[in-house]
């Protein structure tokens, strides 16, 4: 098949046969062991990989370093992993919604590195783009800058921040195909595509898994080359943190 493809016989029907599909979350995370560094997509509870978190809690892996913008709430998202004392270190930008997190942090049980949200996002991007470090003005002159190299460009100071080095990235997409191409929906996109690019192994759970050819190549957000395992998730709860509405009158 590939011979024909590479030697220009474009008239022959060719389909991308690379198949990244695994059965479910349990299989997808089976090789995640104690002490690994995980990236978890989502912003607040929006676009979090619910199925994989459930499986990680069930598996009971410990001593994890988790990189995620937030730490869930007490009884959902990464909060469930905190309850099980599975997280050794949390790298996040905002953790205000989680009382158990604050308790473990203030008692010293949990190691925490709080970093600016844009720095978090761009360190993911750097990893996915193959760049070792970035320069950002965020945090200059604050405790975030402690121990970091400062460089001056055109009269302004910038901190050097390293690309993340995560063993696994776990993301949630709206649709994906069997080759691992992903499309996200609305603001549940957030950190998911940039984390998908940043993991040594990237696991994607999707609401709808389709055959190759069903997604318009122009509409794909994450090329499947970045995704190693994909499965269709189930029983999505999609919890809302702040339900704000207006009345029709």
């Amino acid at each position, binding site marked *: 098949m590939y011979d024909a493809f590479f030697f220009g016989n474009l008239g022959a029907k060719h389909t991308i046969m690379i198949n990244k599909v695994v059965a479910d979350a349990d299989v997808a995370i089976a090789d995640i062991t104690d002490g690994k560094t995980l990236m978890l997509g989502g912003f607040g509870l929006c676009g979090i990989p619910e199925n994989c978190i459930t499986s990680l809690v069930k598996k009971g892996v410990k001593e994890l370093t988790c990189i995620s913008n937030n730490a869930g709430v007490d009884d959902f998202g990464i909060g469930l992993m905190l309850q099980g004392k599975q997280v050794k270190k949390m790298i996040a*930008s905002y953790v205000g919604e989680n009382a158990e997190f604050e308790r473990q942090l203030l008692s010293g049980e949990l190691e925490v590195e709080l970093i600016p*949200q844009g720095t978090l996002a761009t360190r993911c991007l750097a990893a996915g783009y193959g760049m070792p470090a970035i320069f950002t003005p965020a945090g200059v002159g604050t405790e975030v800058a402690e121990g970091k190299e400062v460089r001056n460009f055109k009269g302004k100071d910038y901190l050097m921040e390293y690309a993340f080095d995560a063993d696994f990235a776990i993301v949630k997409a709206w649709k994906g195909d069997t080759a691992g191409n992903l499309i996200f*929906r609305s603001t549940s996109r957030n950190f998911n595509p940039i984390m998908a690019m940043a993991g040594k192994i990237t696991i994607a759970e999707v609401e709808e898994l389709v055959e190759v050819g069903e997604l318009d190549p122009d509409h794909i957000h994450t090329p499947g080359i970045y995704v190693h395992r994909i499965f269709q998730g189930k029983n999505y709860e999609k919890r809302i943190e702040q339900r704000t509405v207006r009345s029709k009158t």
Partner: protein
Amino acid sequence: MALSKEGIAQRIAKEIKDGYYVNLGIGIPTLVANYIPKGINVVLQSENGLLGMGPFPYEGEEDADLINAGKQTITTLPGSVIFDSAMSFGMIRAQKIDLTILGAMEVSENGDIANWKIPGKMVKGMGGAMDLVASAKNIIVAMQHVNKAGESKLLPECTLPLTGVKCIKKIVTELAVLEVLPEGGFKLLERAPGVSVDFIRNATAGKLYADDDVPEMVID
């Protein structure tokens, strides 16, 4: 009389110009959206990855996948656009946002701001605040002039861990509109209706400069 939170938001809304891209922080800044004058077209950015934030959804139409940076359910508008969080902070860093409005626990007379941490007590994190203050070309702080204990939040130097240094140029409180002078110190630009310069001076721990005749704020 000191302004309500809504009054602060209403006064800040007058700083918004037609065609602005604006980032609103959590708290009083969010209220500013309610007072944007008619005929002024602005695009609100939500730093999780949205330009063109619309109002809250009608009851029953909430979408868990569509939230703002405060994790509230919102809507999009015709012309809205969604992007990932790296691009969102890319446009912030590249100074594409015309105006950033955010809250603060303390502001110093050289323009430093603290709003993310109270050591030993409150550890919520900085979220996007450090990125916003480090890059924004135009920042307005919306806050109460004094804290719950009655202590001034406009200080010679911040006592809490900093969010950013020498970045704040304008502050609107329930008592006053103030400018941070490039050489340091707070310049009183406007007083809340009926509030005296002396009253504001007493509530300001940092250096305060006031002309003889400081105008009252005009709030429609």
